[in-house]
């Protein structure tokens, strides 16, 4: 087995939370399906079955995604700092592994391995829950959960989101690695203070909000680039439920906008900044052994 695989295994040994958090989260959701009062849930008959099934899959997947984002952020902040804090860096650095390889293994864990674990966990949880609910809940709900096309679409959606966020959030992930490689203590504080200080300094000196806007755009702007939001592009179904009109998509295909994401300069400027910050993190890792 090559070095990279051993480094990833090492991350699983060190950070058991990588699989334990999704396992516990999935376990809780399955328990809710098993013992919750699901037989009381009812949905209006007019409600499209597809929308119910899609909503269920998105809710499960979305929950995993939110938890994953929080955990990955923490992981990136901790991963290089932890070795310095407990001085085990003196052991790791006695191995013939370059600091570039080490830093890349942390980045790959955060942007590829952890999302893959959550992807599998979300799928398994959805499957188990759908199975339990089709037995325990009303037949209408049961039927709504087994649209094969929806399941396939959600797989694609997940992978699409994993790939685009890995590229889009690269500068943020790399920034967290820089803090993790640099800070002598209080990584959390050091990750938050510099951006806040920059935003305040800019506002105070020039009265402008360029940095704040850029940061906000980076944090929240992914959805605008990766998905179409214009109503005309997709196949929509209109349903009237009592006095409300509900418009629901029948397919996610129309929403995905990989071309828009890939052709946006913001995507690649961010990625370039990310690469620069990774170089910084590696240089800090080479020179800093003390916490």
């Amino acid at each position, binding site marked *: *087995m090559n*070095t990279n*695989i*051993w*480094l990833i*295994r*090492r991350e699983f*040994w*060190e950070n058991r939370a990588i699989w334990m958090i999704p396992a516990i989260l999935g376990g809780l959701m399955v328990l809710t399906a098993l013992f919750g009062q699901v037989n009381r849930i009812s949905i209006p008959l007019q409600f499209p079955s597809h929308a119910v099934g899609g909503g269920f899959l998105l809710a499960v997947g979305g929950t995993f995604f939110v938890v994953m984002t929080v955990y990955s952020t923490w992981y990136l902040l901790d991963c290089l700092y932890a*070795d310095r804090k*407990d*001085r*085990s*860096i*003196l*052991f790791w*650095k*006695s*191995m*013939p*592994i*370059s*600091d570039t*390889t080490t830093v890349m293994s942390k980045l790959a864990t955060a942007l590829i391995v952890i999302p893959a674990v959550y992807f599998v966990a979300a799928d398994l949880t959805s499957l188990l829950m759908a199975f339990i609910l089709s037995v325990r809940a009303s037949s209408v709900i049961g039927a709504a959960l087994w649209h094969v096309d929806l399941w396939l679409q959600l797989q694609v959606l997940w992978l699409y989101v994993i790939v685009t966020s890995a590229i889009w959030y690269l500068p943020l992930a790399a920034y967290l690695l820089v803090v993790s490689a640099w800070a002598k203590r209080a990584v959390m504080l050091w990750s938050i203070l510099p951006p806040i200080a920059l935003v305040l300094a800019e506002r105070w000196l020039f009265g402008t909000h360029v940095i704040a806007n850029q940061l906000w755009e980076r944090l929240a702007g992914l959805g605008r680039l990766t998905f179409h939001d214009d109503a005309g592009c997709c196949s929509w179904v209109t349903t009237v439920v009592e006095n409300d009109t509900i418009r629901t998509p029948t397919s996610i295909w129309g929403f995905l906008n990989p071309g828009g994401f890939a052709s946006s300069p913001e995507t690649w400027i961010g990625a370039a900044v990310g690469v620069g910050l990774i170089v910084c993190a590696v240089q800090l890792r*080479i*020179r800093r*052994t003390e916490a």
Partner: protein
Amino acid sequence: MSALIEAKDLSKKYGTQVALDRANFSVQPGRIVGLIGPNGAGKTTALRAILGLTAYEGQLQVLGREPLRERAELMRDACFIADVAVLPAWLRVDHAIDFVAGVHPRFRRDRATAFLAKTDITGRRRMRELSKGMKTQVHLALTMAIDAQLLVLDEPTLGLDILARRAFYDALVNDYMDETRTILITTHQVEEVENLLTDVLFIDKGRIVLDSSLDDIATRYAAVAVAVDKLDAARAEKPFYERRLLGKVVLYFEQPNLEKLAALGEVHALSVADLFVAKLSGGAE
């Protein structure tokens, strides 16, 4: 054969504090060298520089490589234990062996497991469950199973009790040392390593103050214990250090005239510890 480690004007500052001040030294293959100095003399900084763990000024070549830039390549042929108990608390003993076996081309797994079989450390234990002495044994098992040309030990027994210290050095002597290995070891407990070493480097305030083989020390230095009435005659031979001891004065000489000294009192060889104290305190005690 050329030197394994070659340092020229090696310097390092932490802010305004000078840790290494144009230190010059070399380590030849097959030697067991003690880098000896008081606390804060620059021992650890010198080792960190040699191992590629810190930036430095001046020229430094270790196994023909530039340590900071080529640490990963260097670590194929050099290994080190920098301080005890640095194996991470979450690491399991068997995983540690798997990992090193996986990433280190010169690791001999059978040697590590044979070494650990002699202890009562079992594979599934985590480092946090082991005592400091046991952790050191695991680290030693991992390190000594690597077929490296250079082994660097930085205060390897710091904080260990006497039993664990003895076990450490016994293992080093019996299971590791042979004529193909070069070992560089720092300690401030000179007595502990004295009979292991072939060479010593004394370091003080960031500078090398003595670079000598033990054989040279034996022939080059001598001490004479003289009674007070012969003190003036003895001082005429230009001792570099004086020490009062039980009513007598012990004088240390470099390149002594042994015949003259024998007439003044009892002549004996200087131990490394004696020489260390004399060189580093300067003049009379």
